[in-house]
């Protein structure tokens, strides 16, 4: 599928174990419903190196969270009558997860890969103390650990994520923590077994703005300290701007652009990415400059618009010579390591960006 045979293959189903730490190949997650098949993720491929951070950006319903749940093996009733159909490959450190047994994936969960959820209040059990919940995850993968040892490990973790008086707070219930504290505790829980892959699904969305930056700083510090690979899922480009090495933009269950963080912010290729950048609030701009929203609403994942899924909302769809409604654009490499799926000719895109978009950003 790739247009550039010399670059790393994007989609090479069945090519065996990749050398990357995490490699997702042609992942498809389809949910059968009464109204039709919801194609939440439809042919997604990406790789992530050890110690690097990938930001997955997109609107609600673009397939970000479904992707992360697939990696974690947290979809329920897979392959059953009303459950999702998952195909493709997910390679984590040489092990394929889609075809692996439930038990194999379960043993990796919480140990090799861990997840931080969006809303720390609902993501923690209200009837168990924070300590109990951390200890439980630790002892699940360290059955030899004594209770006292696991407890001091939990206290260390709470201390590490910046919770004051961790030896006291360890016995608190989640409702006795503030929102930011709770997310710190959630991070401590995820780090309990020193995972090599950490997935943060909208880790700051439910938090107070003042706390958001602290949590992001914490995630970055911890990544450097633990050397984990991190996937940050967000709808907010601002969140990944400083954190991510690479950014992947999703739309309608597909990747429509990906590249290094620097490239994406300085030379974005896809009109949708332009839209995301234009709708990002910035404090270095004058107040009278309005945000430019992406018009329209996210597409139905049951009946995607024909051709390019973004065409009904794309202001430049008329410049593709009718291809935007006829053909699904392929993800092609524009510059090394920077890929985009757009029918607009590269020169046209660059001209539009330089003349119409860049001055507004």
């Amino acid at each position: 599928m790739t247009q550039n045979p010399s670059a790393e293959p994007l989609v090479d189903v069945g090519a065996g174990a990749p050398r990357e730490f995490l490699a997702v190949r042609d992942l498809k997650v389809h949910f059968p419903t009464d109204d039709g098949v919801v194609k939440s993720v439809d042919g997604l491929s990406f790789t992530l190196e050890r110690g690097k951070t990938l930001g997955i950006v997109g609107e609600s319903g673009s397939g970000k969270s479904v992707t992360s749940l697939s990696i974690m093996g947290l979809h329920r009733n897979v392959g059953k009558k009303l459950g999702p159909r998952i195909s493709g490959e997910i390679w984590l450190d040489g092990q394929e997860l889609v075809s692996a047994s439930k038990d194999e994936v379960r043993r990796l969960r919480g140990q090799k890969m861990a997840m931080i959820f969006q809303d720390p209040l609902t993501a923690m059990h209200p009837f168990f103390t924070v300590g109990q919940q951390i200890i439980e995850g630790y002892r699940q993968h360290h059955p030899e650990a004594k209770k006292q040892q696991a407890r001091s490990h939990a206290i260390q973790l709470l201390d590490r994520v910046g919770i004051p008086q961790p030896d006291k707070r360890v016995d608190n219930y989640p409702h006795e923590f503030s929102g930011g504290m709770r997310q710190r505790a959630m991070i401590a829980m995820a780090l309990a077994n020193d995972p090599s892959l950490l997935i943060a699904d909208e880790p700051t969305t439910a938090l107070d703005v003042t706390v958001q930056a602290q949590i992001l700083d914490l995630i970055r510090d911890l990544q450097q300290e633990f050397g984990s690979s991190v996937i940050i899922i967000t709808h907010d480009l601002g969140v990944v701007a400083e954190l991510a090495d690479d950014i992947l933009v999703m739309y309608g269950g597909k990747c429509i652009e990906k590249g290094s963080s620097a490239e994406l912010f300085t030379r974005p290729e896809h009109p949708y990415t332009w839209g995301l950048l234009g709708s990002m609030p910035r404090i270095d701009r004058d107040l009278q400059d309005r945000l430019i929203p992406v018009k329209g609403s996210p597409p139905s994942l049951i009946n995607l618009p024909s051709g390019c899924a973004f065409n009904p909302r794309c202001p430049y769809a008329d410049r593709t010579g009718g291809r935007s409604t006829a053909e699904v654009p392929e993800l092609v490499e524009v510059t090394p390591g920077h890929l985009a799926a757009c029918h607009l000719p590269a020169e046209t895109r660059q001209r539009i960006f330089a003349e119409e978009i860049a001055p507004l950003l």
Partner: protein
Amino acid sequence: MAGHPRQGAAGQPSAKPTAVLLYIFRRLLNVVVMLLVVATITFGIFFLVPWLQHTDPVLRYVGKNANPVAIAGIKVKLGLDKPIYEQFWLYLKGLVAGRSYSNGPDTTWCPAPCMGISTQTQTPVWGQLTGDFPVTAWLAAGAATIWLVFGVGTGVLSALRKRSVIDRAAMVTALAGVSLPVYFTGLVASALFIYNLGWLPESNPNVSLGSDPGAWLQNMLLPWITLAFLFAATYARLTRATMLDVLGEDYIRTARAKGLGEGTVIGKHAMRATMTPILTVFGMDLGGLLGGAILTENVFNLHGLGYDALNGITKNDLPMIMGVTLFAAFFIVMANLIVDLFYAVVDPRVRLA
């Protein structure tokens, strides 16, 4: 990572023991007030019903052809000649300290809590209630055990196997259980197992656990199952609904994300959250049942409080009705209190205040 600002309030210490005691004391005061209200209402009924029927309450204590002198004597003995407010005071006093009914040398002592004299047996109501209470208590306890095990078990199974054959069969059965009254299921069960198949002997109100445990067990089996069927159905539906809600919670996904086995996820995390509302309802139901299971006791001829209640109603035995009502009210109010205290123990988010 030094110098993190402390966010929000520091952890609140759990409620102090004195605060808990104070709370319990306040609630017990509430209980007393509630019972006082119930006592007032039942006392009102005692006078209202004869008034509506244009009779004198004293006539219930005497034979059809009693002579006016005897009637007047009994009226004095029971204090029915006194003004109503004084009678009410004597009634309340009797509840707390006991009272004696006397007309000269003819004295009957009614020990506390005196709920009056039954017009049928001419003995204090309280003695009869305490005598019959074990029957009701055993009926409630046995049925509760059965319905809790089967109801919750079925509900959990249904939730875990949502939309399966087991789930659908269980929910149809539960719907039947909720819809069918005890006087139907009880009579059908009696007809089938006692009279048709002959598996169980005819019910005999005179056997007790002490006198003949085997016969007692045979006697109680059908009432237990019949009563449990009614409640198990409700519990199965409640458990299923609660469990399904809980299974959709984020913290269940977190538990799975930690790599916990499905047994721990369901048995520990999901059950902990599911059982809390169920035990609340259970406390209320059990409290209500201890005041008498009127239909079940009468269908199976068990002489418990429910039997006394119906008997009192059909025989116009007003003191008995008042007694059973007050007795039942006591259990319901206490059950409420216990459930509230229990809730504070199991749900750390609830603070007693």
